[in-house]
């Protein structure tokens, strides 16, 4: 297991060493979203009884930061290693593809959690603390990070240049997170778009995560857990198949 631990430690150290870019910057971005949206919409939007719009927004922003940073961590690490060629340093040692997968995904979760915690801590003074069901918070935090870390791994393996990775990020990850109910409840959408939202797995991550804060959500957290857990399982199987076949890593 030492090889796995080393790779995990290396991946964590990699983002930690450039913490301004990988942690502080996304926290600031989320804070700006909160300040602007809450300033503009606080008086106009109320999604749940007894929950201010600003308080409603916080879990969404935390989760969005977790997801985007978990994806960025594994995908950017892999593409950089591939483009610069230093990927061979982890391909030459006797690491199994399970270890490879687990190290990259756990490091991604780690960055997602650190950024998410940063966003939460810097926004608490605005909204106060609401933790109705902390276990749900933890479950969706970890599963959300894991799914995006895994997607980042897939994108990093698939992409051959930064341009392709940027396309994956901007045309898939960003729309999925923005159109998932971070800034609104899907009940405020027209029926058609409500239906469309149900096909977006990120919606379930954010809705379930938000349930942990307020004890209310658009749909049952159990359904969200089933969808999110199922997605993680499918993506894990796909990624392990890619790794075991050597797809784009061991030509």
């Amino acid at each position, binding site marked *: 297991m*030492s*090889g796995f631990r080393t790779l995990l430690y290396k991946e964590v150290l990699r983002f930690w060493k450039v913490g301004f870019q990988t942690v502080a910057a996304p926290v600031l971005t989320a804070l700006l979203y909160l300040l602007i949206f809450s300033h503009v919409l606080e008086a106009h939007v109320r999604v749940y009884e007894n929950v201010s719009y600003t308080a409603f927004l916080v879990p969404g922003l935390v989760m969005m930061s977790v997801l985007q940073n978990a994806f960025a961590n594994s995908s950017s690490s892999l593409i950089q290693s591939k483009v*610069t060629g*230093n990927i061979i*340093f982890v391909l*030459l*040692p*006797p690491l199994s593809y399970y270890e490879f997968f687990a190290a990259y995904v756990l490091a991604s979760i780690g960055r997602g959690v650190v950024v998410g915690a940063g966003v939460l801590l810097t926004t608490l003074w605005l909204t106060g603390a609401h933790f109705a069901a902390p276990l749900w918070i933890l479950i969706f935090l970890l599963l959300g990070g894991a799914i995006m870390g895994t997607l980042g791994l897939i994108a990093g393996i698939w992409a051959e240049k930064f341009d392709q990775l940027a396309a994956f990020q901007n045309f898939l990850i960003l729309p999925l997170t923005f159109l998932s109910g971070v800034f609104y409840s899907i009940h405020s959408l027209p029926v058609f778009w409500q239906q469309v939202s149900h096909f977006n797995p990120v919606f379930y991550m954010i809705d379930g995560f938000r349930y942990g804060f307020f004890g209310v959500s658009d749909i049952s957290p159990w359904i969200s857990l089933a969808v999110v857990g199922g997605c993680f399982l499918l993506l894990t199987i796909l990624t392990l198949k890619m790794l075991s076949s050597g797809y784009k890593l*061991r030509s």
Partner: protein
Amino acid sequence: MSQTPAIRVHQVTKRFGSVQALAGIDLEIAPGEFFGLLGPNGAGKTTLISALAGLTRPDSGSLEVMGHDVRGDYRAARRALGVVPQELVFDPFFTVRETLAFQSGYFGIRDNGAWVDEIIHHLDLSDKADTNMRRLSGGMKRRVLVAQALVHRPPVIVLDEPTAGVDVELRQGLWQFIRRLNRDGHTIVLTTHYLEEAESLCGRIAMMKEGRIVALDTTANLLSRIEGHSLRLRLPANAPLPVPLESRVTAAGDGWFSLNLERGEEVEGILASLRIAGINILDIELGKPDLEQVFMRVMGKIAASDFRGKLQ
């Protein structure tokens, strides 16, 4: 009982699209050998090394390192192999020492500090140990690559063009170190474009062309394939060469004439005929056959009688 080969390659093929990179390679390298893998660009050397290291999966055939199949028993095979890649790759996030500590960890080795320090010392990296990889010169990055290949003390070390772009001083230091490793029992496999390096270092050599091994023998036997010597003479301008010698000239220019000799003792006769013709010899060089000539002959680039190696 016969000894387990350090490397065993059996009927390995690999195709990339329309290119047959490896076309049925069979090769055995004994433990402790200093083995050279030569061939022009695109011959398949790096593909073969990549297959050995598990970086490329062959279409058919099998490869073993110290008796361990590189796919079926990949953990043991990879522990037995240290690879110095051709490309000058590095991780820009870390220092030399961090890089080596991570590489040790990947191989499951903890507390490798003493050995890492020893490698750093021998590769003359001590004063750069805590420097970020980005700040190192090309030669130093190359030395770190060698160090990375050695952190897990592999019995078999493969060096893919390790001295490409490296200055003479560093090259000498590197070879001293690699020779020492070989004396200590490590099997060394080397690819290089510097044929004189291969000639002086390798006990046995395989020459590859278009995915096949086209020559495989001890260096001495390969050199003995080239018979004769080459003689270069610098003569006064416009000196008429004796007729019997004219036919033996293979190249001429700037007052230098190059001739082929089948036997070394023919030199005396040539010098005598020049003396008789009253021609003063201004300078003289006698060249032995070298690996470059063998290489060129094997690769089919020159005719058997054309010994250009020493003459250009």
